[in-house]
């Protein structure tokens, strides 16, 4: 498990006091420094860090409050993990309305980052399914926020990076499922135009679509990848595989990153060729479908002591293809490569948060071992491409975007800043606004 006070990318480091919150009815502590809520530490960069200040660890506010198995409305404390929700509701025929690629995020963290998933084109962000939540501020005030009650606080807090106060409890609307199985189709594609075609023809009939692309290949193999589209399976599909029970774990941090240009090319080529047919149909349990990496505990350690950097951007529909090609070419030419490059078409469901990241267009998520200046230089080049295209970069995954670009990507930042709790701050926020 990650250490409290660390981010998932393990870069940058931060020195902070951790204060555990266990009682949602209690007032907030009053440290002399600034504070920031910290859930389960799955943000990659520094948006969950508060160097020199205090972290309010919300993970132990983990009680359910109410669950109506008829309507699928769940109320729980903000430290409850998505994994705990799934364990409770899947056997009763419900599923998370939206889930990111790990189930080890807290409800509070999912709200603060307005997370998205493979069904963005249908369901929008997680915030679209939050019916209400309670916001506790350092002045002791409590607001129940929803689209009707305190809508301005609702909009500021969803995607508000934990800066508006502590979310103590939330009510969410789950979605019906017949069982834990997914019915998926997996396609191999040879280039980016093929991805766009597949995605476009799938978005109407498939709730979940996502692609992996091989970022280590160049030339004619540039932009090749694997496209997956899936729906929740009917109650009794022909095959009903169990959730994988074996739990692997990376037991220690190796002295250097195991991800290097050689292992990257090998992995990417193997992954691309792992299925022999160009199309395959599979019925699988939801766990490997949604959370392939959750099966390997502490996988972030493979990047060694210097950690790694995620980079997730979105570019607008009109320029998607050109822009993605430029991005992939730039990465391939740099030789930095990315272990997991994920490509997805966002839909046009409006995100409810002032600072929400998802917006119509194509999103690309990458991770890079932190190899110092070369990695930073590459990410700066990617930023230039994204900014010129009118796109944006995801704060939850960022540890280095320049302030000028943050302000361009999120023009609402200034009006948002009025909602920040005067006692709250984060390493990220100071970096992109000061």
């Amino acid at each position, binding site marked *: 498990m990650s250490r409290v006070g660390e981010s998932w990318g393990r870069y940058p480091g931060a020195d902070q006091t951790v204060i555990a919150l266990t009682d949602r009815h209690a007032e907030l502590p009053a440290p002399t420094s600034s504070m920031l809520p910290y859930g389960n530490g799955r943000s990659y960069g520094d948006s969950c860090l508060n160097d020199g200040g205090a972290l309010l660890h919300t993970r132990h506010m983990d*009680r359910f*409050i*109410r669950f109506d198995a008829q309507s699928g409305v769940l109320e729980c404390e903000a430290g409850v993990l998505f994994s705990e929700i799934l364990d409770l509701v899947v056997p009763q025929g419900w599923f998370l309305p939206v889930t990111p690629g790990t189930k080890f995020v807290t409800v509070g963290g999912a709200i603060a980052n307005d997370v998205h998933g493979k069904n963005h084109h249908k369901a929008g962000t997680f915030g679209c399914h939050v019916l209400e939540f309670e916001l506790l501020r350092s002045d002791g005030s409590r607001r129940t926020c929803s689209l009707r009650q305190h809508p301005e606080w609702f909009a500021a807090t969803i995607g508000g990076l934990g800066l508006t106060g502590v979310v103590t409890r939330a009510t969410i609307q789950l979605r019906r499922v017949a069982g834990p199985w997914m019915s998926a189709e997996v396609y191999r594609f040879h280039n980016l135009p093929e991805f766009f075609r597949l995605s476009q023809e799938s978005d109407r009939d498939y709730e979940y679509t996502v692609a992996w692309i091989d970022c280590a290949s160049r030339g004619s193999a540039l932009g090749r990848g694997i496209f997956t589209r899936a729906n929740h399976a009917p109650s009794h599909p022909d095959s009903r595989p169990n959730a994988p029970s074996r739990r692997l774990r990376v037991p220690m941090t190796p002295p250097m990153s195991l991800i290097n240009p050689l292992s990257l090319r090998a992995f990417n080529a193997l992954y691309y060729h792992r299925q022999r047919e160009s199309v395959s149909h599979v019925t699988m349990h939801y766990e490997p479908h949604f959370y392939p990496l959750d099966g390997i505990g502490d996988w972030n350690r493979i990047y060694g002591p210097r950690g790694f950097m995620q980079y997730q951007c979105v570019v607008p529909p009109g320029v998607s293809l050109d822009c993605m090609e430029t991005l992939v070419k730039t990465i391939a030419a740099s030789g930095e490569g990315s272990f997991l490059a994920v490509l997805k078409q966002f839909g046009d469901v409006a995100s409810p948060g002032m600072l929400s990241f998802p917006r119509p267009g194509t999103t690309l998520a990458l991770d890079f071992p932190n190899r110092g200046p070369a990695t930073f230089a590459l990410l700066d080049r990617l930023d230039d491409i994204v900014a010129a295209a009118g796109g944006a970069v995801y704060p939850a995954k960022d540890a280095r975007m320049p302030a000028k670009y943050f302000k361009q990507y999120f023009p609402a930042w200034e009006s948002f800043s009025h909602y920040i709790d005067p006692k709250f701050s984060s390493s990220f926020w100071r970096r992109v606004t000061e």
Partner: protein
Amino acid sequence: MQKVVIIGATSAIAEATARLYAARGAQLFLLARNEARLQDIAADLRVRGSQDVSFASLDVNDTERHAGIIEQIWSSLGRVDVLLVAHGTLPNQAQCEASVEVALKEFATNATSTIALLTTMAPRFEAQRAGVMGVISSVAGDRGRQSNYLYGAAKAAVTAFTSGLRQRMAKVGVNVLTIKPGFVDTPMTRDFKKGALWAKPDAIAKGIVRAADRGRNVIYLPWFWLPIMLIIQHIPEFVFKRIKI
């Protein structure tokens, strides 16, 4: 359906254990001082699958109220399949050395109250001729150490008391389970530096439920505390006096 009573139900280990019983659909009766927290926990356990959760506020040191509360438990549940006595504090040893009053109060909370509760409940279990009486003692009770011997003495009392009670109750088919956790990462131990020997409340809770299911007598949680304590118990006094643990 199992009927489970938990005393000290707001403690981290107790709450984690209650969740496991709730997931099985058990009927629960919870006792602790703080009623507002009991209310939150009860709501959570209902969502997790408990058929029914009742709770009552009790200060374990208020021994005069024990008989009444215990009457209330049995009249509400009819019988008790699993009892878990989980209340306790972690006394500040320095304060216990400086004040007789503090020392005796801490001893009362961690030992006398448990003895009182078990004494009052034993006839009920004898009458129903079934059930598990689980009591959380501690590895600290295996040998007094300078860093926390007031706590150690109280837990030693609980360990010895439950050992005798186990012999008595075995005749009528009631199992007394002595639970000895090592270091557990809970609000009670918030200020300690955590190392490799520290366990999470969830892991301790699983061990408790498994031991209760299997009719175990004495368990160390996690298991590695058994050999550790075996060694600590056998260090000769002339050496023990000179080491710092």
